[in-house]
């Protein structure tokens, strides 16, 4: 009798721990743009959580206990890769004891591995700052990359969750149709931005610049990952001139300290613009579509 009730208890506990059998696919993403994309493609079939939010620097977060618990239960982990998350993702994976999402498994999707990367260094030496061996990781800033990743992600969702393969394929077609139309719209609106010279806080924008034909003339960080110093800002001021003739725009990410941009803007008269780099990076950027809408809006407002 006691044995029977014990078995019932163990069984019950087991069922509770396993959770409902037909739950949504649990997706853990490193950045919010991939959670948005997973939701676009997976709808209600996926439940996505992002490790970082739009106002957080994805390079530097803590490998927090809550994130380890999420990775432990994830069916699919979607990250940018290209070493963007090198400071914390390995610690999460090492602690989470989830063999399905280790690198090389179907449960680990690295978005940057599917697109052509810019700024792949010829020479890797930390005296150059925090350069990424595999190239600049901020690939989400070009909507054409989002398209490529969407195709690959739909394929991956089908592989991890084959029962819903048709569902993902349908959602992908719907998404791509909307996306292509939107990209054409953004490109049309952004013609006024072609050739504009920008100063960026961090090297977060090369993909955006390549897409829109912006010309990056300097960065506020003296070297990638090294915060702006007063001597470097003084150099920039000299380069740009107090009349601001050296550049058209100063752009910075939502998670960077705005003060260096504001200071330089105040001295030169060049407008400083906060650009959301991901979903949630501004109040307006609530999904991938409004993210690029808002980015273009903010750039256009600043150059007018």
């Amino acid at each position: 009798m006691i044995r029977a009730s014990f078995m019932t208890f163990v069984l019950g506990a087991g069922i509770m721990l396993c959770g409902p059998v037909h739950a949504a696919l649990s997706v853990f993403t490193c950045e919010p743009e991939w959670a948005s994309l997973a939701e676009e493609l997976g709808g209600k079939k996926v439940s996505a959580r992002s490790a970082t939010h739009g106002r957080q620097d994805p390079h530097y977060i803590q490998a927090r206990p809550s994130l380890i618990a999420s990775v432990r239960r994830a069916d699919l982990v979607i990250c940018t890769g290209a070493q963007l998350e090198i400071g914390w993702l390995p610690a999460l994976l090492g602690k989470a004891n989830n063999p399905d999402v280790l690198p090389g498994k179907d449960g680990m999707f690295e978005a940057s591995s599917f697109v052509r990367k810019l700024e792949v260094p010829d020479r890797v030496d930390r005296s150059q700052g925090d350069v990424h061996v595999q190239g600049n990781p901020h690939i989400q800033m070009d909507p054409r990359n989002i398209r490529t990743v969407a195709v690959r992600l739909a394929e991956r969702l089908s592989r991890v969750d084959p029962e819903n393969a048709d569902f993902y394929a349908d959602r992908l077609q719907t998404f791509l149709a909307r996306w292509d139309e939107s990209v054409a719209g953004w490109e049309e609106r952004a013609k006024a931005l072609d050739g504009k010279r920008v100063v960026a806080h961090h090297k977060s924008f090369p993909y955006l610049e390549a897409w829109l034909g912006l010309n990056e003339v300097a960065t506020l960080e003296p070297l990638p990952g090294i915060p702006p110093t007063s001597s470097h800002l003084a150099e920039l001021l000299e380069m740009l001139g107090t009349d601001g003739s050296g550049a058209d725009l100063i752009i910075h990410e939502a998670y960077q300290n705005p003060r260096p941009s504001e200071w330089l803007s105040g001295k030169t008269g060049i407008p400083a613009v906060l650009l959301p780099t991901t979903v949630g990076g501004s109040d307006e950027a609530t999904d991938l579509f409004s993210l690029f809408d808002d980015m273009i809006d903010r750039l256009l407002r600043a150059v007018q």
Partner: protein
Amino acid sequence: MKCLLQSVLLACVAMTGTSTFAAEPQPNDVQVLREELNELRNEYETRIADLERRLNVAEQSAREANNAAELAQNEAREAKEEAASSALSAPASRASGVSVAPDNSFNPAIGVIFQGQAWAYGEDPESYAVPGFPLGGEAGPVPEGFSLAETELNISANVDDKFTAWLTLPVVYEDGEAAVEIEEAWVETLALPAGLSLRLGRSYSNIGYLNNQHSHSWDFTDQPLPYQAFLGGQYLDDGLQLRWLAPTPVYLELSGELVRGDRYPAGGAVNSGVGAYTLSARSGGDVGISHSWLAGFSWLHAEAEGRESGDEDDPLGFDGETDLYIASFVWKWAPYGNWRERNFKLQAEYLWRDEDGDYALPDGFAAPWRVSQRGWYVQAVFQPFPQWRFGARIDQLETDLPSAHWVDTPLFPGSGDPKRYSMMVDWSNSEFSRLRFQYNRDESAAYDDDQFGLQYIHSIGAHGAHTF
């Protein structure tokens, strides 16, 4: 291929032609035949041209397919490289070559940590001792003057799809000699189901918060007093560690270890070399987007035989059992979770131990020892802006009075509880370099002392991601 097709076609033409000639060789019809032949030739030439065109198309698409395959291969390779590089530790800073050689990505990640310091003391640290708490293991003050701390070589890689391995080789310079030690050398499973992992080999024990952190990630140059007194600085040993992570939304980790028991606070590798075991539980979570916490409770049970502590040349010996309990709590704050911009970390641990056995003095005197001791520390580190951090720490020990025959021995406590007050400031140019100043007001020995230290911690090559 194209040539082959052409030759075959030409051969066909020739054969057809021959057979035509063979069939009707009448001179009257030569003109007709010529015309027919011309027609045929034209027809075949058209066909050949057509075939050539189709062949070209086929070749083009084959080339495209090849390119696609190559692209896919490249992508696969890139993915592999990335997989390898984002494995359990950071990739090695590859040689400054033009590109990443594919072979290189499967080599172990290698990193070196350089640490050195300069300390000034009022009293000679060689004579440092905490009355009532004879120190064992690696505990004790940093050497006076300039000195090289551990130079740590870290090598790690996945062994295969089921195991990963880690090696830490500190090169230490002690008593005029350089020696390579094996600090950590373990393999760990990657593929166990149900949230389990098993670690085999030598490893820092998973007890407490600070115990398994490498010295380069400490916030102060030295370990707090309770770690020095009860764990010999840090407890590491040879054995196995089983870790289970619950599949719950709230982080809950349980772990247990079974180890040799050859190091302080164990000793002598009793029970045929299974002299100590530990159990730990920890949990943690977030409060809003700016706060997170981690709390843990651990128990270490160790048996000792001839465990040495106190003066290195005239050590005390302990035979018996020791039980150590650690409650730890860490609270971290960073506005919006942007750790690098600004952050605050509060960390506290409370340790208590019960020891039951016999102590033997160097002169041969031995007597039973059954004493309960406690220790705690609280430390806070604030980074108000990037690169600069400011920290403060208080650490203290407390002990029950041992029996009267320990009066005037290193086991008898002084008049007050041993305690210290520390402050530190450090500056990090990048994640890979740090310079630190630390001040200790040390009231843990028989005398009070003011101590000043400078320290550098630099790392090159692969650098494993830090845990919370």
